């Protein structure tokens, strides 16, 4: 008996030693082990709730497993245990039905309180509309009239391609970096409106305890009041196709003055973008710009060489669309193709980007049609002020001679038409 007691003590000592090591391990892996506490009141309460329930679960588990382990050690045949014959006890059954129920009540109460707070959208001070696209986010500061896209940083995008052989250690935040972060002010109750243009996405920033599905055709809402300036990173949480893993979110929370300056700067940039849209571009300029746009938006499916993937994604090189009527080509890109992964890029790209990528596709990737699409013309087709009828058959020269008669188009205007 004393021998086995000693072995039990030895086991306990080993267990205690293990438990002592755990906090050390935890310290080293803190950011990869547990839910972040976050920087909003709600996120802290969610974290508290998570830890409370986790601890209750650990206690329940310890009791159940403890009894099992005790039983397995002492009630084994090899120790000469004789089986008891009891096989029911109404008292026991009632006890272990009612006890969990009471424990549940202690969990349900704080959970309901936090949930009610999360769902209270009243008194928000500003609104950002977030639209999910395959595979980027569009942020629209509704009150300010400022909007822009945000997507995986180009360097990260290059590094994450199959067979890129890039040393990922050079990146501080591999595939968590974007080109244009969402800038938000601290200390303001911000309401987020969520929708999507193509499939369901989910906008998730753990530090804000904010996750909501972006559903095409519907608008969801949630909110956050960020308390500390900083950079908070998140990911799309709902499977949204090939590049679901590559649409990160970066929220940069800044003091109010910095935020105001950012908005002012964005408004000024909007004006210069307008000037770019209305001026005449030459072909080399468009092709150069188009290559950049293509590699960012089209390459994923149609491949860098424009050959596509047989059976899944059609080629650009030598295709009927990219070598046929230029206006039909534009419309395919503007409106997408129903029932395929080809999205309506009219909402995704500016007029300059559309014009340049179409020009690039027709004059590169093995195509040499020689014609040119001007940005202002994209706007006209978008608005329906110009259409296929007289211009459809127009070749490059004729389009170049078109007058700039309507300069009212604005980049990314299509987003509001959702």
């Amino acid at each position, binding site marked *: 008996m004393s021998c086995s007691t000693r072995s039990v003590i030895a086991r306990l000592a080993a267990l205690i030693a293990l438990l002592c090591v755990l906090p050390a391990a935890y310290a080293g*892996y803190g950011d*990869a*082990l547990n839910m972040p506490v976050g920087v909003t009141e709600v996120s802290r*309460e969610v974290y508290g*709730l998570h830890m409370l329930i986790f601890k209750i*679960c650990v206690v329940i*588990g310890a009791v*159940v*497993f403890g*009894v*099992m382990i005790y*039983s*397995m050690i002492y*009630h084994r*045949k090899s120790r000469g245990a*004789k*089986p*008891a014959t009891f*096989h*029911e*006890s109404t008292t*026991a*059954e009632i006890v*272990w*039905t009612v006890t*969990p129920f009471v424990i*549940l009540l202690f*969990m349900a109460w704080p*959970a*309901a309180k936090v*949930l009610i707070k*999360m769902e209270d959208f009243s008194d928000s001070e500003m609104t950002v509309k977030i639209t999910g696209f395959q595979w980027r986010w569009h942020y629209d500061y509704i009150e300010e009239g400022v909007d822009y896209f945000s997507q995986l940083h180009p360097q990260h995008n290059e*590094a*994450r391609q*199959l*067979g890129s052989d890039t040393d*990922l*250690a050079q990146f501080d935040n*591999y*595939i968590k970096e974007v080109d244009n972060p969402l800038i938000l002010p601290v200390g303001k109750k911000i309401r987020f409106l969520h929708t999507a243009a*193509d499939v*369901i996405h989910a906008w998730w920033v753990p530090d804000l*305890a904010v*996750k909501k599905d972006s*559903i*095409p*055709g*519907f608008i969801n809402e949630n909110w956050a009041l960020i308390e500390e300036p900083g950079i908070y990173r998140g*990911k799309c*949480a*709902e*499977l*949204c*196709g*090939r590049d679901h*893993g*590559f649409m990160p979110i970066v929220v940069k929370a800044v003091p109010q003055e910095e935020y105001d300056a950012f908005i002012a700067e964005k408004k000024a940039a909007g004006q210069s973008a307008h000037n770019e849209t209305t001026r005449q571009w030459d072909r080399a300029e468009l092709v150069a710009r188009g290559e950049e746009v293509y590699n960012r938006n089209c390459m994923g499916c149609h491949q860098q060489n424009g050959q596509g993937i*047989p*059976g899944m994604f059609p080629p650009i090189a030598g295709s009927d669309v990219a070598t046929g009527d230029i206006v039909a080509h534009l419309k395919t890109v503007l409106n997408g193709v129903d029932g395929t*992964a080809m999205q309506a890029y009219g909402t995704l790209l500016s007029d300059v980007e559309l014009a340049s990528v179409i020009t690039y596709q027709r004059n590169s990737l093995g195509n040499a049609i020689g014609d040119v699409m001007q940005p202002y013309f994209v706007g006209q087709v978008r608005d329906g002020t110009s259409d296929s009828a007289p211009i459809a058959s127009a070749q490059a020269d004729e389009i170049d001679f078109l007058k700039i008669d309507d300069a009212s188009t604005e980049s990314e205007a299509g987003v509001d038409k959702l």
Partner: protein
Amino acid sequence: MSAYDTAHHDDHDHHGPAPGLTRWLYTTNHKDIGTLYLWFSLLMFFIGGAMALIIRAELFQPGIQIVDPMFFNSMTTMHAIVMIFGVVMPAFVGLANWMIPMMIGAPDMALPRLNNWSFWIMPFAFTIMLSTLFMDSGGPAGGWTLYPPLTLQMGDSFAFVIFAIHFMGISSVMGSINIVATIFNMRANGMTLMKMPLFVWTWLITAFLLIASIPVFAGAVTMLLTDRYFGTSFFSAAGGGDPVMFQHIFWFFGHPEVYILILPAFGVVSSIIPTFARKPLFGYDSMVYATASIAFLSFIVWAHHMFTTGMPLAGELFFMFSTMMISVPTGVKVFNWVATMWRGSMTFETPMLFAIGFVVMFTIGGLSGLMLAITPADIQYHDTYFVVAHFHYVLVPGAIFSLIAATYYWIPKWTGNMYDEKLGKIHFWTSTIFVNVLFFPMHFVGLAGMPRRIPDYSLQFADWNMIASIGAFGFGFAQIIFVWVVYKCVRGGEKATDEVWEGAVGLEWTVPSPAPYHTFEEPPPLAVINKNHF
């Protein structure tokens, strides 16, 4: 004990199995069909497992090294479909076929030709399903949950996927009808409902869940089909539909489906633990009621899969509370198993080891399930690896472990030979260690912010993912030991007695080992039934 049966068997007034391949093609014998189901699911287990290993190989380190993200998505989708519809469900139907008639003293299933048909549909359905991987437009890649609009972006192999799902559904519904008909009509005189082994009870309830939920799924995928090909817009907002409606319909099927995968496992474990504790199952009646309560609750908790879709507050509260309620009957089950072990006289043969492994690790999965029920916390957990860890804990060391335990437990009855106990124990310990190395770290990365269904991740998750991948390969290769043990046991080995296990209770242990081709052509006498129930 088995004298009445062997005496009859010696009369030779009935036919044995037909020779050759036709035996398996035309068979209406519940044991043959059970065997077919079990071999089929074992094959699919390795196919689905290979897909899991492709996933874990890609996730071994950050960056994309092996497969295109689209193919990765196909793998996650297909892995789930294969494991759910091709492994766990058919394996339990196989066990039901083998064991239910022998447990209730019936000569065969009630509807033997239907039985043949419901099996033989499966290989065709899965051939079609798997063939989509080789089609131009690739296999399904929108997740096994098939959420529109994403799933509607799939190429024309989509139609094959829907067709295959319909056939799997038909097979399951027919199998379930057969099980219900058998249990209600074929019990030997004196085998009252409350004397049935728990495996029979859990399967009866599971069969009702299947009959109620599979047609809902069939309806949902048919609506996807018409949205894709016939211009309807059930799930397209542009045409007046709602993508979230699909999720409601899907999970109205999907949540009962979760219990379809686990209730028969409860039955298996409730058979094994009393045997090796040499003590009757504690709280038989409450086990039955708990199973029925879980089945009922499973129909009113579906939207807990959808807390981030934007439900009204009242809906979120309702689904949170109803989901938490499930832990009460589930807890009753776990406590009853522990009470059965308490003051027993336990031995730890391989089936018992896997059953205890089941109780411990299923409880871990159950507790993380309780955490997931808490809506505000679920907002953070949803669609992360925490969820992946949770459902793999209940399905792998849960459902799969119970299937392995059942195989070790009953294989002496099936083959007449004892399996290799030493190899069985090695199989248990390697499986248990690696399954935890595989799935436990997923809790950490999930909480720390790693979404599920992604082929690449940030460097902060690198260490745990590498560990998980090592666990995956270890667990995968450990299953080769299982195949070897089964193969050896089928080929020969120490002869099993009729009782096989010292403490075994139940009619299946009153027939000879191996069980003759036909058993209980005459129902067992009342005295035998009364001596052999819980």
